């Protein structure tokens, strides 16, 4: 950093957000800058606090699913999956196999869509304007499929405790096969354009480094944690649904810098696409809802279940008092925890790096503030 105070100088407070193009929503960080260097950063969140957890206490279990759609509005299906899994656990029902496959296919597709959004917006953060178009083109294909299957492009309300709302349309399997081919091509195109671009490398490699122990202590998860070399993936370490029956790889980074966090997401896109392919090949026939599914009053008790969201470890702590509404729903928001790592990553970097680092964490403010 600076070689010492040769001049009388005052650090400048630079308020980034809540209205700033690079904060991905209503996030605000107050940077204390010395010239172009960031001396300190104070994140401020809560601009989007809707009290989701408290609201869930007065909604019936079926209605809470719609709230989860709105928690992380980029990966809605993953969020629904997280809640219905917690609900299934507390109600002690198991979704039929076909429903589980459908849910995993959709969740993985949503993961790809979410990662595509990340790649595109991250490129925008760094000043490249083309990848976002490629990414949105592919994302659009996925959203079209979602619309076809669930009837909505974003707020699906498709999964149910014990299964899914309705069976997939007849042309689902060929459609997804076609989709995978298209999306894979699109991801490859973007990957080639951006990942090893000289300027992109210069902006992301060695920037925003966080080491493994610090990342774990901050509670980072998902690609942000794996970038630091900790191979923690809920799908692998606490397998759920039909993930144990799939072959896949969990890419792990080495340096914990922005490029690692970025590139792991690119690799995850390929992995997810291959997982979907396997799911399609295995997709069984059968019912899509568990038999005794009119249970809306689970036994009193509490469960903690978590699943791998595109942003990391999305946990749901569900407490039931035996009534038809959850007594307490607590979400473990991966973006929220990833954001805790912002400060150790950013201090000492440049202003432009602060943008790159924030982008590499891939936060969704709906989830951070809930």
């Amino acid at each position, binding site marked *: 950093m600076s070689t010492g105070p040769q001049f009388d100088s005052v650090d400048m407070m630079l308020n980034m957000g809540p209205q700033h193009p690079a904060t991905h929503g209503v996030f605000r960080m107050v940077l204390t800058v010395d010239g172009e260097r960031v001396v300190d950063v104070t994140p401020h969140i*809560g601009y989007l606090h809707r009290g989701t957890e408290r609201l869930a206490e007065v909604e019936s279990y079926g209605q809470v699913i719609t709230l989860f759609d709105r928690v992380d509005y980029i990966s809605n299906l993953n969020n629904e999956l997280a809640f219905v899994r917690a609900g299934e656990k507390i109600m002690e029902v198991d979704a039929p196999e076909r429903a589980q496959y459908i849910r995993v296919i959709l969740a993985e597709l949503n993961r790809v869509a979410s990662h595509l959004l990340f790649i595109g917006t991250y490129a925008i953060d760094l000043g490249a304007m083309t990848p976002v178009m490629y990414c949105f083109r592919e994302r659009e294909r996925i959203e079209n499929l979602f619309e076809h299957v669930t009837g909505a492009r974003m707020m699906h309300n498709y999964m149910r405790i014990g299964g899914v709302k309705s069976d997939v349309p007849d042309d689902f399997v060929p459609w997804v096969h076609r989709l995978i081919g298209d999306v894979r091509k699109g991801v490859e195109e973007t990957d080639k354009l951006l990942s090893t671009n000289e300027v992109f490398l210069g902006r992301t490699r060695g920037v925003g480094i966080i080491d493994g122990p610090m990342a774990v202590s901050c509670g980072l998860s998902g690609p942000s944690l794996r970038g630091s070399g900790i191979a923690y993936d809920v799908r692998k370490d606490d397998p759920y649904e039909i993930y144990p029956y799939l072959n896949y790889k969990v890419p792990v980074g080495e340096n914990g810098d922005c490029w690692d966090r970025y590139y792991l997401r690119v690799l995850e896109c390929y992995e997810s696409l291959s997982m979907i392919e396997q799911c399609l090949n295995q997709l069984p026939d059968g019912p899509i809802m568990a038999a005794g599914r009119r249970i809306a009053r689970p036994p009193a008790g509490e469960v903690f279940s978590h699943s791998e969201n595109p942003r990391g470890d999305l946990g749901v702590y569900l407490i039931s008092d035996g009534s038809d509404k959850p007594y307490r729903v607590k979400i473990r928001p991966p973006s929220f925890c990833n954001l805790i790592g912002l400060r150790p990553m950013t201090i000492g970097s440049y202003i432009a790096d602060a943008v790159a680092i924030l982008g590499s964490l891939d936060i969704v403010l709906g989830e951070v503030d809930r």
Partner: protein
Amino acid sequence: MTEQDPLAGQPEAKGPEASAEKPVRHGPPIVVAEEQLNERGEQTAEQLARTLGALALDAAGRDDTPWARVDASQLHRAAEKCRDGEMGMDMLNLMLAVDWVDRIQMIYVLYSTTNNRKAILKADLPAEAPKISSVTDLWEAGSWYEREAHDLFGVEFPGNSDMSPLLLYEGFEGHPGLKSYPLNDYEEW
């Protein structure tokens, strides 16, 4: 509508106010789930019991996640033992406060990235002026969870230097996470 909502066939389901007035519940009686640990959970429970020793007031668990209740004053010690002992709980996965009306319960979900095991610590706080020592010095993640619990439940965390509002705005009155906080008739600001 071919699909069936989980709520279908239960028109008598009402809000909490209604059920509070009418203690007679319709539908099935409340069943308390029997908590059972699986094999992996048993192992973790043993570790947890070894680690905490006499600190654990009671313990049980569900599936692979055992929990132990400790006294609020001993929570920091218990958490430190979990982190540094054989369990190696290096990640504070989740921390939440639950308003049980007569008490506030703090729940700490710990995770070990090295052993891939989860365990839960619980501590009961009085409903009036809840206070528990901060775990920020053990896990960085604690700081924001504690600020959130402070915002929403009014729990004090001595040891956490920064307790400014996180999710609420400066000067917000009340603790909206509490069951006693009115849900619909709040003041517009």
